[in-house]
């Protein structure tokens, strides 16, 4: 299959790679229909994240169609159109039980400092990401969500990372009515954080970036 292949800092290319296989009964293989490049992928691209191995495929924002399911997957079937959140999480560990899906304990063997993320180097679990034709999605019953009929594909792919991150940024700021909120960074996350600040009742929202 065609997949993005990291060769070193500032060097990436699209290459043929073997397709992923089911490694665990709870896995699913998803055929990607849309993938995004995130601003945090640029840290990988610039070689700033430790344990980024040559040959890795990046991409934690993707949607696609389920092509194959493991024997323990009951809520998804082949042909379902799903959006896959960027966290790889199990749903049963202490952190998942407290809704901290970004801090799952059962999916990242290489590091306890971060949960697991698709396509974000081995520091974040070592899963190949969505800038490819096929992706292995662990715990397919728990993580992916079937895209409702009235949600556009482009909206769905932004719901995998950019919009929830921006929204959670505004949420963690505990915005009260009339607050002045300053957002540093006018990328997608910053733009969504600014919009979320308005939704939460901010009085002034200032977005700062360089031109």
């Amino acid at each position, binding site marked *: 299959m065609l997949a993005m292949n990291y060769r070193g800092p500032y060097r990436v290319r699209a290459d043929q790679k073997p397709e992923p296989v089911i490694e665990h009964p709870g896995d699913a293989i998803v055929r990607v229909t849309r993938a995004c490049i995130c601003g945090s992928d640029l840290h990988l691209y610039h070689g700033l994240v430790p344990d980024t191995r040559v040959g890795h495929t990046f991409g934690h924002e993707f949607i696609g169609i389920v092509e194959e399911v493991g024997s323990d997957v009951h809520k998804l079937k082949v042909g379902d159109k799903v959006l896959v959140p960027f966290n790889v999480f199990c749903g049963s560990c202490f952190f998942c039980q407290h809704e901290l899906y970004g801090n799952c304990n059962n999916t990242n063997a290489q590091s306890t400092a971060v949960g*697991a993320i698709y396509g974000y180097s081995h520091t974040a679990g070592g899963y190949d990401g969505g800038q490819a034709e096929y992706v292995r999605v662990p715990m397919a019953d*728990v993580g992916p969500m079937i895209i409702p009929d009235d949600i556009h594909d482009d909206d769905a792919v932004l719901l995998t990372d950019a919009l929830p991150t921006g929204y959670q940024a505004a949420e963690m700021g505990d915005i009260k009515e009339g607050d002045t909120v300053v957002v540093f960074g006018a990328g997608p996350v910053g733009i969504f954080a600014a919009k979320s600040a308005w939704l939460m009742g901010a009085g002034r929202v200032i977005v700062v970036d360089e031109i």
Partner: protein
Amino acid sequence: MQTRNDIVSANDQHDGDHAPGEHENDGHVGHVHRAIAPRRPTRAQLAHIQGWGADLDRKDRPGVPMERTPPRFINVPDGDPAPQKERVEVLVSTERPGRTPLFGTVQPPSGLSGMIRRQAFKLTENDVRHWLLLLVADRVNMVEGIGEDLASGKIPNVLAEMGIKAEFQHNKAGLAKKVALGVAVVGTAVYLMKRRR
């Protein structure tokens, strides 16, 4: 020289001229006595913003409180997942009791960079050397990657991998500057080497 008593009595005199609260509504803008408070726009001023205030009530915010149990909106599995079979080598952090039930199996450690990574994983994540060794292993891995490409018979087109086509299309000035800089550096190096001889 003012004694302490003089300073205190001077202040008292000034304060004695004002009753408490006398300045509240007399229209002095920017008067020293008024406390600084943040200015808040009214709801009418903000009404033009689409969806303003939709999540004003904290009950509507899904992440408030941050930790909440039992988890909503997911199909909660029964118990931890069954452990995945290990087909390839997976390096495990020393700060956890063994391997996780689920793990990624792509790009197992190999070669010199693999040896450096195995050494790095003998140290805890708390130790900066762990991360520095991984960064060194990444750079070594890059050279190994070029070696792999050459061994399988294809020369990596480094400029294409760095996006030279896009640079040419969108940033000709930047490209020209980089080329000029490269030529200058190489030219200086060649000149200096010739001079030494």
